[in-house]
């Protein structure tokens, strides 16, 4: 889902709520996220009583149900939190630097790069466990984003539109190559089917630890550039007049978003829609203030992801629906209702 629309001065400019309401919204979002974190540990595809959950966390023993909590539900919740934060923030970053409310990290080829690298790892090198191929996903995302950045750069800096077009081209070429490998190798195709859906089931915490410092670095970078990005929303020239370096800001933002989106994709696979939708909704809630958009995205994205994951666990018991499939089902109707309600009109 990587579509470029023209920049639009949507409803945000007119309906920005005051600081008080923003703060209230922030507290609400925080409460919702906390509640979902608790629910995510409590609810699973099997019934485990709250007392066992409590014991599993605070009085651990070698009981089979306690293992289920400690080995599966707890890591899954933490992974969901980390992946959600990363996706939301990376989406906010890409929308800020392309000044395009419909861009998501996918437009810079993050998913295409990760998928291609994982296909090579699975199809050509025969790696089948996630511990092995998650690094391919990460490296693929990183290399491709840098490639897109280079392609989209001119001697004067980066042009957002050319960058996005370059991302779509590189993404398409890699996507074609990936499909070509998959369609001639049934085993690679088969192994990639579930990865493509995007899921946070069965990722042990060992998978998360090495990625976490990278995400932390990116988080700091994102907050650092949020101010300059705000200035750049009005155009590079105005930003320069305020003492902002658009090129430098953009590079830092791309580095941050690559780490975030690459890390999230490495762990969970290509989870679509969260990175696209959440910053969009955040912008509708708080108006065009990057820092607020970032903070809201950090809270709303993991909420969407965890809520989707919980729903995915219970609607098809005993089976589960991968989270990447549920997010679109929850997110898309919200997006459609919002775009119909707002006088969003941009063109």
């Amino acid at each position: 889902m990587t579509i470029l629309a023209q920049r639009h001065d949507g409803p945000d400019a007119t309906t920005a709520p005051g600081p008080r309401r923003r703060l209230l919204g922030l507290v609400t979002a925080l409460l919702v996220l906390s509640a979902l974190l608790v629910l995510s540990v409590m609810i699973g595809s099997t019934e485990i009583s709250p007392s066992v959950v409590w014991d599993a966390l605070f009085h651990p023993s070698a009981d089979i149900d306690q293992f289920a909590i400690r080995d599966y539900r707890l890591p899954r919740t933490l992974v969901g939190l980390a992946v959600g934060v990363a996706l939301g923030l990376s989406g906010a970053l890409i929308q800020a630097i392309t000044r395009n409310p419909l861009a998501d990290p996918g437009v810079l080829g993050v998913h295409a790069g990760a998928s291609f690298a994982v296909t090579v790892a699975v199809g050509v090198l025969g790696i089948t466990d996630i511990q092995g191929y998650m690094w391919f996903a990460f490296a693929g995302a990183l290399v491709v984003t840098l490639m897109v950045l280079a392609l989209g750069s001119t001697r004067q800096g980066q042009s957002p539109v050319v960058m996005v077009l370059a991302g779509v081209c590189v993404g398409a070429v890699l996507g074609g190559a990936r499909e070509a490998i998959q369609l001639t190798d049934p085993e690679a195709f088969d192994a990639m089917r579930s990865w493509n859906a995007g899921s946070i089931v069965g990722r042990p915490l060992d998978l998360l630890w090495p990625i976490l410092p990278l995400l932390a670095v990116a988080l700091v970078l994102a907050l650092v550039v949020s101010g300059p990005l705000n200035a750049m929303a009005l155009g590079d020239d105005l930003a320069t007049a305020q003492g902002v370096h658009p090129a430098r800001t953009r590079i830092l933002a791309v580095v941050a978003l690559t780490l975030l989106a690459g890390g999230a994709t490495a762990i969970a696979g290509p989870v679509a829609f969260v990175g696209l939708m959440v910053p969009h909704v955040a912008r509708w809630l708080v108006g065009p203030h990057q820092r607020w958009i970032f903070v809201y995205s950090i809270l709303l994205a993991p909420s969407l992801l965890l809520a989707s994951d919980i729903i995915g666990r219970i609607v098809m018991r005993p089976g589960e629906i991968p989270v990447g499939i549920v997010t679109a089902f929850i997110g898309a109707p919200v997006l459609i209702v919002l775009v119909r309600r707002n006088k969003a009109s941009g063109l």
Partner: protein
Amino acid sequence: MSNPRRRRGTALTAALLGAALVLTACGGDTEPTTDTAAAAKTRTVTAGNGAVEIPAAPQRVVALGNTTQPFIDIGGKPVGVTELSASELDPIPAEQKATYEAATKLGADTAEVDLEKLAGLKPDLILVQVPDDEFEGIKKQLEAVAPTLFWGLDTEWKAFADALAQAGNLTDALSQQKTQFQDKIAKIKQTYPAIIADTKFVAVDRWDNSDPGTFVISDFGCIEIAQGDIGLNAPKAAAGADPLGWTNLPFEQIAGLSKYDAILYPVDAAGQPKKAFAPVVESNTWKTLSTVTSGHALGVFCPGNNSYGPVLQYLDSLDRALAALPAKK
């Protein structure tokens, strides 16, 4: 291992196909037409695409899609094949591998078949098993080259072997395999009557395509043979519902396996847990499962379920596993 998600063979199709084969076998073979030499050299067989006139003793056979491995398994020597994947090729005997290597590859499994290359082989018979819509796309082209026999994916494996042997004039080799199969089934039934009658089994599996942290309760593939031919008691999907094996279960449901008396899990030829299944065996929930700790989890090797050769290997493995099952308390 190979094609774990093969469609369930529906009994109805099998029965119809079997009946059709019997009819055509009678009709085609025993009634030499009054015409001359050319007619005497052909016979009519019926497959999923209707009655087709084929050479009495085909010499240059092209085997496409799922027909490749089963056709080679009954001693067929195809001149052209679609590629087998590594996991399909791995467990087959060396001389069959040589036959496969010698054949011209006409394209990757299920991807596009190089029709002109196929025509260049000048085959006198083409065997195909692919999804229905895919066959329809190339039906005319194949039939323009040589008589073509098609079977749908839901063809039951025994009827499929019969049909392939019939088509390729290889019924002698097949009847030998069938005898071995029947003997093996009879032996298992005689040796473990009590276990078969009183044990609640469950077959579990995990594939390369499974999400990390998920497994399935398997009800198709090799376990269908154990259920159907031996009478093993293991969970099955309700009639008309999706197979149980299509539902990925998260690891937290491993605990629920304790309600069965014995677990059958997939191992490789060497008896080690299949690579894709290893994460289940290594999990804490599996290690603390009472069925496992009491030795009631049995590793079984299933190299394939679409022809007699691999099925015989499976039965040998199942035989050894049942022998190792501790007596019931």
